[in-house]
């Protein structure tokens, strides 16, 4: 068989292959579809095959044997993405050193973190769970789909470029411990210097390995050259310089973001996003020109000095000036209602509804480099869906069903029914226990127990 035929068969097979273990077929009917990239479809239907969106339209017929979700009167949107969080990890920061690019949060994954369920109730179908901001260069981050009930390994989503955490400002210089802890860096100057130092070392390391690979390929050297010693700390940085990994940079102030843009230009690496970026509005044009996105809070601010000008209008203002803006929870209660945060873009800057929806879907996928797979209701993308009882940008909305790759992981009606049954069971058990106690004594502080 020719190379061409082989490739054709392989690509057909890959398209038709289920996106992962547990992926299923599902038919969603008669919902108001908020596709994000192709407008709104009233009374629309979606067919998911093997975990991928196969058809988006209206007046479709459910294929036999496929589970049907009746979305009439409800709003259907792509599953939400929390682009910056720290859940499902047993630890967040490697505090033992200042540069820790060798650590990978994948080694800390905990699939039993109940917050994985909590985010499902808010329609979240992908999280970017990360190393913390204690170090100028932190660690490698991962994407996960909160497939509650499955093993942690099955939740890890491997698509997209690698993700490496950097941090600027107060946290890596440990401002709140000043002057007690004497760790370099103690100033923004030191934070920047350390990052630059590591990037120079990484560049040398990368060139060393490139030269080694080149000479092995050409076979010019005799005897064969010795490979350079591996440096697990510099390798992720070399991958950054090679473009295989994107930087995600915790930063608040406009000046430090501008400096880091310069660094990225100098060393030719890509910044996926600035994290938090409270002052991004001050440099919106520069960010847009550099095609660097931000993932921020809609409204958390004034919790430390560098957030003193972190106004709520930041997101909408940046979006209007061409910056790719995403929202995140960073462990806050918003992880359960990121859609409300997107809704607030209507109040703080009057962002159009279509753009507001992108703040928690397509834009988040873009800054993570997975927008070919996620972020909109389009044929070929993963069947990750969130269904709401009212428009998701209304303050009165509620997420009712959350679907990942065609599997329903959260169904509010079923959940409430289970709750009711368990509460009834608990009440009966309590009554049995109380009836066994001294009769006639009311519960209260002197009555002993409930």
């Amino acid at each position, binding site marked *: 068989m020719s190379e061409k035929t082989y490739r054709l068969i392989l690509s057909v097979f890959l398209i038709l292959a289920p996106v992962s273990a547990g992926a299923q077929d599902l038919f969603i009917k008669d919902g108001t579809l908020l596709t994000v990239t192709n407008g709104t479809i009233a009374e629309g239907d979606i067919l998911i095959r093997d975990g991928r969106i196969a058809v988006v339209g209206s007046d479709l017929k459910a294929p036999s044997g496929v589970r049907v979700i009746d979305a009439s009167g409800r709003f259907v949107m792509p599953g939400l993405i929390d682009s910056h969080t720290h859940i499902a990890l047993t630890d967040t920061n490697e505090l033992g050193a200042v540069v820790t690019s060798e650590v990978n949060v994948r080694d800390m994954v905990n699939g039993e973190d109940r917050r994985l369920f909590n985010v499902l*109730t808010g329609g979240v179908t992908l999280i970017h769970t990360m190393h913390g901001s204690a170090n100028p260069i932190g660690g490698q981050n991962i994407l996960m789909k909160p497939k509650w009930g499955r093993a942690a390994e099955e939740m890890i989503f491997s698509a997209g470029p690698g993700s490496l955490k950097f941090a600027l400002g107060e946290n890596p210089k440990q401002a709140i411990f000043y002057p007690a802890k004497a760790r370099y860096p103690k100033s923004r100057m030191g934070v920047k210097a350390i990052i630059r130092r590591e990037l120079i070392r990484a560049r040398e390391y990368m060139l060393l390995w490139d030269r080694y690979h080149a000479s092995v390929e050409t076979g010019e050297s005799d005897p064969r050259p010795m490979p350079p010693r591996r440096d697990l700390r510099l390798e992720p940085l070399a991958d950054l310089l090679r473009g295989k990994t994107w930087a995600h940079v915790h930063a608040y102030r406009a000046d430090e973001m501008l400096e880091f843009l310069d660094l990225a230009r100098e060393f030719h690496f890509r910044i996926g996003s600035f994290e938090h970026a409270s002052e991004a509005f001050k440099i919106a*044009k520069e960010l847009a020109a550099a095609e660097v996105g931000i993932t921020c809070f809609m*409204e958390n601010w004034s919790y430390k000095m560098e957030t003193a000008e972190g*106004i709520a209008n930041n997101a909408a203002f940046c979006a209007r000036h061409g910056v790719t803006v995403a929202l995140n929870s960073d462990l806050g209660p918003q992880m359960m209602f990121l859609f409300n945060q997107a809704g607030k873009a209507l109040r703080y800057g009057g962002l159009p509804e279509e753009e507001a929806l992108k703040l928690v879907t397509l834009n988040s996928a873009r800054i993570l480099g997975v927008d070919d797979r996620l972020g909109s209701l389009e044929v070929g993308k993963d069947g990750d869906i969130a269904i709401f009882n009212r428009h998701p940008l209304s*303050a009165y909305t509620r997420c009712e069903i959350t679907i990942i790759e065609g599997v329903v992981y959260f169904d509010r009606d079923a959940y409430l029914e289970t709750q009711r049954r368990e509460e009834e069971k608990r009440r009966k058990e309590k009554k049995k226990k109380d009836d066994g106690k001294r009769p006639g004594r009311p519960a209260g502080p002197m009555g002993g127990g409930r």
Partner: protein
Amino acid sequence: MNRRHLNVLALTGFLLAGGLQARAAAENDVFALMNLRIIPVSGKDIPSGIILIRGARIAEVGADVAVPPGAEVIDGTGLTAYPGMIDCHSYLGMLEISNVAATVDYQETGLTNPQIKAVEGLRPDSVHIPIARAHGITAAHIIPEGAFVAGRTGLIRLTGWTPDEMVIRDEVAMHMVFPSHPGFLFMQMVGKTQPAEKAVSQIKDYLKRVRLYGERKRMAADRPGSVPHEYDESCEEMLPVVEGRLPVMLSVHSEEDIRAAIDLVKEENLKAIFFGVSEGWKVADDLKKAGIPVILGNLYSAYHDFDDGYDRHWRAPAVLQEAGVLFALGTQKMLPPLGKDLPFFAAKAVAFGLDRRAALRAVTLNAAEILGVDDLMGSLEPGKLANIVLADGDPFEFKTKIKAVFIDGKKVDLNNLYTDKIKQFQKRFR
């Protein structure tokens, strides 16, 4: 003309302008807000009507109101008028940047601090105040925090150059934290380090000590020299509470603690408001029977047990409403933004079952009733302060624009740090 002449001229001009200003204020003592949809909260909606403001008060509200000559007319076509909202648990003005200790003044060290007054930690220039009022919040119940007896809460209007201009009531209630976690500053957690019995004893012992102090004070006044008596602030400043002149706002959360607290306030004959009541939904009927009003806290992040349900805290207001408990909402936020989310907390409660009108009452009239100022605010009625919000829609909805806010009859500036910064940087990118 020399320099001195110029100075005299400038001074005269200044005085003249000031004079003109004063005249203008007198004429503008009467405002007529016309063509409004009016939601008074205390009565039926008025599909199209007029609110007449005279001085600081609402003079008339109705479909047909005679507008006196000289009144400044404001056309409210397309707008709806609501009573200004009241945040029942706020640190507005008492904190600027939460991890910069120098700017944090809502919490004091020590166990027993009845002498502390929230209004004495108030900073009128806080950037958070204009932001909150731009959302239609016109008054805030500010709370001192502490480990046990935290101090006196206060009520402020969200406008004013000085603390005196802001303070409506310099004491509303004595904030007491039910001491199930002795030693902690304040806790929302339901897990306990001290059983309710012990916590109740701690409170009872303290109140007993205060009463004894009061008795000795009276005896010493009646017959000087008869008993030793010395000013003890931890007792003296608590006398108004045991003598029934000042209510207690008790922060209490777990089911067991709430039950114990209900018995306690009855036995000690205390006028009480309960705050927080994270598990209040479990004992809603008991709260109703005891007639204890409730202030709920931060609805976004209120504590709840995972096993009780992921949305238990959002459903709680609806449960209390159904049981007939009188409750109001507070933002209870120590991390900015402060206060502004009161309407959005209300919307969250509605999303999870609370009736929309009940939600509106929880941030207006109920709040005023619980704080003892329903003669002044909480509804659009003649005689009450003219605290009015004009919005182009439902103020609980995100896409709504708040077009005007009146506090004590004066239109307040809706600009704030958000709008100022945006204007500044719009200039950069022109």
